[in-house]
């Protein structure tokens, strides 16, 4: 036997730390991955980009051992391995940070850190007492190495998202992760926090950790990655060193493949000069301190006719609570909301809708749509009390169908049949369905929260078009989004929310991403 082979491999000599070769995976008639091959070199940051539904998540599930490929193989440290399950992948040093953070919300950060791998003072099997001091020491040491400040005694629920993300990364490193997979890690972060995360990832890379980074934000890929692979419709379209390519080329491969697309990140459209009458006025709005939410501390702003007001902020600083108060889903304990010249602070959601308010919920799957109900029922919902849908005590089925078809066609929702479940539509079409319903009654004001979450590039463009047209026809929009690019490209005015209050306002013309970012984290929820 060759002596060299018996020695532990020199990590420097490995050429592929994590690789996939000819992976195929189909679900029924859908080919989620078709002959996908990637190779991630040791100590590189490798970005995988593609639209929603391109097959990125399937590939990640395979690399993590959650799903087995139909054919093809996985390579770790140049050797083919069989990832029989997540535990096997974990044992090989592959760890993943999901979009949904894997922290138990009611446990402290320290408890989350050690969960499943607890240091003990005495070995008594499951009854072993946990050595909290050793746990804290290991947490502090890792936090120091990654230059993060973590209050370990806080519960995960009360921790700002970027700290939760740090903790999750630290937890993986503590368990010996050498290959870190991050799924859209910047989706919930403010720009400065993104910078911090990138610094952290770069320092991890420099210390030998290999990073696979899934994203659809080209700016971030260009800023962070060493190499990029583009996946479209289940196939690898393109792979290049980031230094040898540009964003336009990558975008072209993402959406259609014919050469470069102009990257129009923020195409400022001709905007109305700030003009119309005040449609909605919010004064000193406060909410009680309640569990699982962020209280509002005196929110003041207004929305005028014919403008889109963007509300930017780091996730969890009171945006959802504000929206719920405005549409009548959450109790208020101080301040007023007036709309269409009337005090609506204590009106029900139905009364507010009657006055001309439309609402596109951030939670499309639970609040925006009844996924198991038909497309028709979803697009009619709310109009069932009045003719033509209602005729006497019954529904007029014919009129109902006609109205539904008109509404769906007006926005261009693509669907099979009216009777199909709303949940069968793609994310983008589901969201268009919500818009079709909400703008059908010609509301004066649309309150729109996270309208493009989970929507592909084509769908995003369509939804942005809907919002611009709605404004052009004289409607007002309050646009709440964690996508700063979206806010910058659509809004006439931009408000920044932090810690339950509006902390800044700027017109779109003077918008400065650096300043907005600083405002977002200025008072950010307890910022570690």
């Amino acid at each position, binding site marked *: 036997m060759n002596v060299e082979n018996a020695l532990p491999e020199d990590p420097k000599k490995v050429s592929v730390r994590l690789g996939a070769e000819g992976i195929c995976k189909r679900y029924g008639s859908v080919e989620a991955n078709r002959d996908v091959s990637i190779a991630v070199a040791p100590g590189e940051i490798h970005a995988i980009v593609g639209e929603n539904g391109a097959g990125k998540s399937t590939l990640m599930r395979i690399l993590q051992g959650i799903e087995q490929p139909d054919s093809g193989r996985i390579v770790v440290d140049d050797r083919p391995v069989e990832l029989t399950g997540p535990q096997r992948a974990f044992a090989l040093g592959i760890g993943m940070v999901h979009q949904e953070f894997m922290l*138990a919300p009611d446990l402290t950060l320290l408890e989350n850190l050690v*969960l499943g791998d607890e240091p003990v003072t005495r070995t008594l099997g499951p009854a072993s007492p946990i050595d909290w001091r050793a746990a804290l020491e290991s947490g502090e040491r890792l936090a120091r190495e990654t230059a993060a400040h973590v209050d370990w005694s806080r519960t995960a629920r009360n921790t700002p998202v970027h700290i939760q993300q740090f903790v999750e990364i630290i937890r993986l490193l503590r368990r010996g992760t050498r290959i870190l997979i991050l799924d859209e890690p910047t989706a919930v972060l403010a720009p400065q926090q993104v910078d911090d995360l990138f610094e952290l990832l770069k320092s991890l890379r420099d210390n030998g950790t290999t990073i696979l980074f899934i994203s659809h934000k080209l700016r971030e890929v260009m800023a962070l990655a060493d190499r990029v692979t583009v996946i479209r419709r289940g196939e690898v379209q393109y792979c290049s060193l980031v230094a040898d390519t540009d964003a336009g080329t990558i975008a072209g491969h993402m959406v259609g493949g014919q050469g470069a697309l102009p990257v129009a990140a923020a195409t400022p459209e001709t905007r109305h000069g700030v003009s119309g009458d005040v449609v909605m006025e919010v004064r000193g709005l406060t909410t009680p301190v309640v569990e699982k939410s962020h209280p509002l501390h005196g929110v003041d702003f207004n929305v005028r006719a014919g403008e889109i007001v963007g509300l930017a902020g780091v996730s969890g600083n009171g945006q959802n609570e504000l929206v719920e108060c405005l549409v009548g889903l*959450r*109790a208020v304990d101080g301040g007023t909301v007036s709309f269409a010249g009337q005090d609506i602070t204590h009106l029900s959601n139905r009364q507010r809708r009657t006055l001309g308010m439309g609402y596109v919920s951030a939670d499309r799957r639970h609040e925006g749509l009844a996924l198991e109900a038909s497309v028709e029922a979803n697009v009619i919902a709310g109009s069932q009390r009045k003719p033509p849908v209602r005729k006497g005590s019954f529904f007029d089925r014919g009129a109902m169908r006609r109205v539904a078809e008109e509404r769906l066609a007006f926005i261009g929702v693509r669907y099979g049949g009216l009777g199909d479940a709303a949940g069968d539509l793609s994310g983008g079409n589901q969201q268009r369905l919500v818009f079709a319903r909400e703008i059908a009654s010609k509301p004066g004001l649309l309150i729109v929260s996270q309208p493009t979450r989970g929507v592909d590039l084509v769908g995003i463009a369509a939804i942005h078009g809907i919002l611009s047209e709605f404004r052009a026809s004289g409607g007002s929009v309050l646009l709440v989004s964690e996508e700063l690019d979206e806010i910058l490209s659509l809004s006439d005015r931009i408000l920044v929310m932090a810690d339950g209050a509006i902390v800044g306002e700027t017109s779109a013309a003077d918008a400065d991403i650096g300043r907005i970012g600083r405002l977002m984290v200025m008072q950010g929820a307890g910022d570690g």
Partner: protein
Amino acid sequence: MIIDQVIAASLTLTTPILLAAMGGLVNRQGGIVNIALDAKMLAGAFVAVIVSSMTGGWFFAVVAAAVAGAVIGYLFSLVITRANANMIVAGLGLNVLVAGLIGFVLNWVYDSSGTLRLPDVQLLPKFLPDSVSSIPLFGLALSELEPLTVFAWLTVFALPFLLANTRIGLWVRATGNAPQVARAMGISGRNVQDFSTAFAGFFSGLGGAHLALASIGLFNEGLTAGRGFIALAAFYFGRDRPIATALVCLLFGFLDATQIRMQTAGLPPKLIGTIPYLMVLVALCIAGWRNHRRKAVAP
């Protein structure tokens, strides 16, 4: 003195509820709402009477009752965690099943309908010397103190520590709080839940043993009188925290004791007997209202 008697009776009547509630709260922290505590108490009482009569030893009887409860709990858990049965429907089924089986065995083996009297049943020993009964107010309660009541209260104060500082305690809380997180961290949520349900069965069995062996020394089909459900209400109201839950149990024990006194005072017994259950309803309404306020739902 009446006050002495009420204190002593409250403490005694609290113990079975308290034991079942301690088991049930661990179970609920682990993510399973166990509405079959009553069945396990009934089984525990039944087994305790039989084993106490057979061996003439209270200790074996108590251990057998706890083991019976734990085994039933474990099997019940398998139905929920492996066969994916709905925990409420399965729990209802278990309550009916255990009551029916015990009635059947009573009839078939002991040729009795409803009540089981056996010779040589040894009751739980009262271990403090009689002289303590001269202590004002609490003397009577102290003189009637038996091992299960002491154990129940030791559990109340040990549980918070165990839940916070042992691996299994952390696993139980993690599984109940975020099962997918626990699974991702390599913890088998199903095993942890099976453990917590067996734990609840163990303590409910002890509660049943206390009901049977604290003073009466016989088994009756209606012995638990819904105390498993009162325990359920107690840990709901106590929000799964051992000490808060124990205080609620004490309140229910006190109400039970006072209603017994009121019955002897000549008030209509059936009507007065509903007081503890009425209070359970009130407690649950308060808990629900408190929860509602906490979430601040708009009207």
